[in-house]
């Protein structure tokens, strides 16, 4: 469970750091009246939606680190035989990097309030993502055709499980993406989708990071 | 106010209950008296906290309860000094409990080098045991090799395994005052090897060998309980450990068979059994079809291991000795005519070779209700009531249904299965606990419909 504990320690550390910054050591009974710069709307200059997303990313980090912990623990047992990683995974990694880049460009455009830039970048990012999903399916196909089926070895089972869990998260992101594209298609003004685009960008960067970790794990073991 | 008095009474009552209750540790029979001591230390520390904290609370309630309208509470946000002292005292108490505990645990994790090895094997819902034999080494095993002929899953070509002593009953003997390390192995699911008098316990985990060690210090017979939920027969998974002097132990050990002896034991000969069967045929019929008029059940179609075991039970007075079990009592002298094990093997083999025609159905009941009730039975006797060797459960479909009803009633009322030697019959005792006669008929009606 070491990898999970590290991730959780980082998350907990962040929480505690933030709490301490919030003057956890004041004597609240000693002060009366309005204190701090704090006002309704929260201590952050960022939106609730972004906070919600960040909290969700902590949850997802916990989830993936637990998968990784389970992977390491199960790996120690004698019957573990790794299947060769399909080459297409390298291509998929590049595709996901590109989709992340284009999400970032869409976000930048949204902040600058450029309608055209948002839409085109968003579309390209989405296409790359779909290509990534397709590529992952292809990798499954390759493994399956070579006889590395789910139940034949725990290493295969973990391969399918980890990629599926990652892909499901991406599909969840694509749902938000499709709603945003739909809105832009209906000529909704850019500032109204700005948050959604920004959140998508953060989410995609996170999922890219998760994929890089998972891919490194699969390659190195 | 009442609440304060009640809390005081509860504290006093709990302390009295602690000292007066008839339920406390069973008499120790191993070297783990240290565990009892750590429990005692914990009781002292925790008991003090329990008494002091609650009495102080009760005092506060009495003293500071609202008595008149103008009463005001003190304003006291915190008291650093008091809080620090309380933290320190608590930490001291915690260390007082933890340190001895860790010392005892350090002893547990290092079993003595010279401990005798005993393998305890768990399966749904029985115990069996394996001793390493003269070479002092257990042979290798493989769960995938487990079958009716090789219930331990022994690797036949492992030389170390040949002299392993296999104990297929649920009764293990160990010599007094000699440390013993139990290697624990499970064939199927999690189990737990517990003897309350020994204090230690450990889970059996399929796919790995776990262990625990102890030195038995008191002569006696103790019950092994499974304490890890292992399916619907969990509560019936019992065994026995007999702690005895070295001499008696050696005598017992000499009677046990090794793996090689088990493997070489002759199979039953149906041809030779045919002659012996003539005695049986007078009641059970030439083809073992049974005769309700004589209260003789159908026996054809039953597997030989079951017939064999029942014949042995009848022969050795384990079954059919209860005076109320009149039909069982008739069977006992008949089984006694089979002079030895090979005779029993042969006649069982012959019975298994008889043609199997379904018995006439005589019992009616609510099949739907029977189906629900049969869910429990199906775990051992099979979805088709075909019987399962691994759990010693006989086939019950297509057999004499009136006999089935009689036996269910016998189990329920202690006419069968109450003898300590009837290990498998005893398991039925609690399984039929919640069945009344109507439910029994429903179940049998359902079995008839299979």
């Amino acid at each position, binding site marked *: 469970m070491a990898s999970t504990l590290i991730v959780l320690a980082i998350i907990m550390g962040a929480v505690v750091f933030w709490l301490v910054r919030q003057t956890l050591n004041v004597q609240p009974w000693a002060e*009366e009246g309005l204190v*701090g710069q704090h006002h309704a709307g929260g201590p952050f200059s960022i939106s609730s939606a972004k906070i919600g997303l960040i909290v969700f990313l902590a949850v997802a980090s916990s989830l993936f680190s637990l998968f990784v912990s389970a992977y390491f623990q199960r790996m120690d047992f004698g019957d573990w035989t790794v299947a060769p990683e399909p080459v297409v995974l390298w291509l998929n990694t590049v595709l996901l990097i590109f989709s992340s880049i284009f999400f970032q460009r869409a976000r930048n455009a949204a902040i600058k309030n450029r309608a055209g830039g948002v839409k085109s970048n968003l579309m390209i990012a989405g296409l790359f993502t779909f290509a990534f999903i397709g590529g992952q399916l292809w990798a499954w196909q390759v493994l399956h055709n070579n006889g590395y089926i789910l139940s034949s070895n725990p290493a295969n089972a973990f391969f399918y499980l980890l990629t599926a869990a990652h892909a499901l998260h991406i599909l969840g992101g694509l749902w938000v993406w499709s709603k945003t594209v739909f809105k832009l298609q209906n000529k909704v003004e850019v500032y109204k989708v700005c948050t959604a685009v920004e959140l998508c960008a953060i989410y995609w960067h996170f999922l890219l990071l998760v994929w890089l970790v998972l891919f490194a794990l699969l390659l190195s073991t | 106010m009442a609440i304060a008095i009640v809390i005081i009474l509860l504290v006093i009552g709990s302390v009295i*209950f602690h000292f007066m209750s008839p339920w406390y540790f069973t008499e120790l029979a191993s070297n783990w008296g240290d565990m009892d001591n750590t429990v005692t230390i914990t009781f002292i520390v925790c008991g003090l906290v329990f008494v002091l904290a609650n009495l102080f609370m009760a005092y506060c309630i009495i003293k500071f309860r609202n008595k008149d309208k103008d009463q005001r509470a003190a304003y006291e946000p*915190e008291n650093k000094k008091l809080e620090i002292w*309380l933290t320190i005292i608590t930490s001291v108490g915690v260390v007082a409990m933890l340190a001895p505990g860790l010392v005892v645990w350090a002893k547990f994790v290092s079993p003595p080098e010279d401990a005798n090895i005993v393998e305890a094997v768990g399966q749904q819902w029985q115990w069996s045991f394996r001793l390493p034999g003269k070479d002092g080494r257990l042979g290798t095993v493989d769960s995938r090799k487990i079958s009716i002929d090789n219930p331990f899953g022994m690797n036949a070509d492992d030389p170390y395994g040949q002299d392993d002593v296999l104990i297929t009953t649920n009764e293990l003997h160990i010599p007094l005052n000699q440390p013993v390390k139990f290697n624990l192995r499970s064939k199927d699911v999690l189990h737990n090897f517990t003897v309350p008098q020994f204090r*230690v316990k450990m*889970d059996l*985990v399929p796919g790995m060998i776990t262990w625990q060690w102890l030195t038995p210090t008191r002569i006696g017979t103790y019950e092994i309980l499974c304490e890890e939920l292992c399916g619907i027969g969990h509560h019936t998974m019992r065994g026995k450990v007999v702690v005895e002097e070295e001499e008696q132990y050696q005598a017992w050990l000499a009677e046990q068979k090794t793996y090689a002896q088990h493997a070489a034991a002759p199979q039953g000969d149906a041809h030779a059994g045919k002659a012996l069967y003539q005695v049986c045929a007078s009641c059970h019929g030439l083809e073992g079809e049974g005769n309700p008029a004589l209260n003789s059940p159908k026996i054809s179609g039953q597997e030989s291991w079951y017939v064999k075991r029942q014949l042995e039970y009848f022969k050795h007075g384990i079954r059919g000795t209860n005076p109320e079990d009149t039909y069982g009592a008739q069977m006992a002298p008949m089984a006694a005519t089979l002079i030895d094990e090979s005779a029993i093997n042969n006649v069982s083999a012959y019975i298994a070779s008889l043609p199997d025609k379904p018995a006439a159905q005589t019992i009616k009941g609510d099949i739907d209700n029977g189906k629900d009730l049969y869910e429990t039975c199906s775990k051992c006797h099979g979805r088709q009531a075909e019987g399962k060797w691994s759990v010693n459960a006989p086939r019950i479909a297509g057999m004499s249904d009136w006999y089935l009803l009689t036996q269910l009633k016998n189990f329920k009322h202690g006419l069968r299965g109450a003898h300590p030697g009837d290990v498998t019959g005893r398991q039925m005792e609690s399984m039929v606990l919640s069945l009344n006669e109507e439910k029994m008929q429903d179940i049998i009606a359902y079995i008839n419909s299979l």
Partner: protein
Amino acid sequence: MAHVALADKGQDLAHPKTWIGAYVWSQDHKVIGIQYIIVATAVGLVALALSAMMRLQLGFPGIFDLIQPNEYYSAVTMHGMIMVVFMLTAFFLGGFGNLLIPLMCGARDMAFPYMNMLSFWVYLASVLVLCSSFFVPGGATGAGWTLYPPQAITEGSAGSGMGIILMLVSLALFIVAFTMGGLNYVTTAFQARTRGMTLMRMPLSVWGIIMATILGLLAFPALLVAAIMMLLDATLGTSFFMPAISDLGEVSSTSGGTPILFQHLFWFFGHPEVYIVALPMFGIASDLISTHARKNIFGYRMMVWALIAIGGLSFIVWAHHMYVSGMNPYFGFFFATTTLIIAVPTAIKVYNWVLTLWHGNIHLNVPMLFAIGFIFTFIHGGITGLFLGNVAVDVPLSDTYFVIGHFHMVMGVSPFLIVFGGMYHWYPKFTGRMLNDTMGKIHFWVTFLGTYAIYLPMHYIGILGVPRRYFAYGTTLSFPDSVQVINASITIAALIVGTAQLLFIFNIIWSLFNGKKADSNPWRATTLEWQTPDTPPKHGNWGPELPVVYRWAYSYSVPGADEDFIPQNEVPSENSKHEVET
């Protein structure tokens, strides 16, 4: 400087137009909280009925032939899982969390009201899926609430087919629901606190609920991972947890897996889960005690730090549930130490509750009775935890009735007393009527004394060695007949306690129509939820203006003040500046 409250600007509250919109598809946190409470109570009653059936079997084996062994084990499993997850977790976080967080923080609603509504409906779906497993072939799963493989998915257990699959699916749904709710609670407490509500001015109820939510958000994924992997083992023949076994005589197709891995994942969730229930309980207990003792909570800062410390530590104690599981026995040293360390902050909380009573002005109202009863049961359950957390002490007691007695005291009776106390306390705010006092007192006394009569003897038959999860003890060499006698008396006590809960349900319904009318702050409490312009609060909670907070949540009996409480949002007047001790 004039603040424009962002929370006001940002939140478009969807005001419902129809009855269904207001009470069924509602996005109002108060309605959702009540919906959570109703469903959790309903499913809790199912679990209560299951326990009655188990007790009848154990107390009077062979006399009440209500259940067969397979049904008994299903009942054991479902009772445990329902009470821990679907009742207590849902009640504290979904119920009290929804009701209290926005009101106590001074927000108009949760940060994401729509997601909040979805959270409830997914929770309801998870409950329905769970309950449907009673009716599938083979019945509900009988693997124990810990769902250990292999037995959970092999033929020898009750409900090893559809039963376990539905259980896992239901848990997955619950986790989705919890995550949606949890994101809301955390974001709301971070973002939507009203002006002046600094962290250290928050009532401990909010602290407890928020810390529990953070624990839940990080810990529930472990259960999800375990559930997904077991689902694959059960349906697609993978070997994550499944070694090669001989399943009732038939060699399995699986090999190499390790059941211990499941246990690690399960308890990595399972132990924080204990605190997911305990932290809100701590928080609410603190507020009940402070309010009804008319005194500030003693050592507020210590209480907050203890909550955070307990939350953090709860992630490194999980394997104390596995001392006899066959894991590497050397782990025992580490986990015994961490487990006993966690006792220190927990003990401090207990001291501070009792010290709050010291020099207080204790009003023995019904919520206070429950809170005091809670302190007693929690001390009892807490110290028996020290037995089980200490590895060498745990070994003889593990898997016996001592464990049953312990966790029912600490995680059954204690949280329920606080649930009841909280209901008696906040009922007037959300209905405008008081709960009936006489019925409340009867309910308290029967529950408090009855549960002690149930669980105290269990500890002792546990020390004797009586194992848990036994359908019947049958002929045994191990225990005297007196065990059966005490089992029968436990059953009688349990049935009486169970019946008393029906009185509570009756009280809730009866008082809705006949209860004494409550004013907006019947307990004269300081926290914001009592200062709403309307009782019950309307959608949006605060009328045109959000409250502004000037002081912490525990200004009770402040020297020099006219009243013995000063609401958090009362404007401090220059000429009557209260003396504030530092």
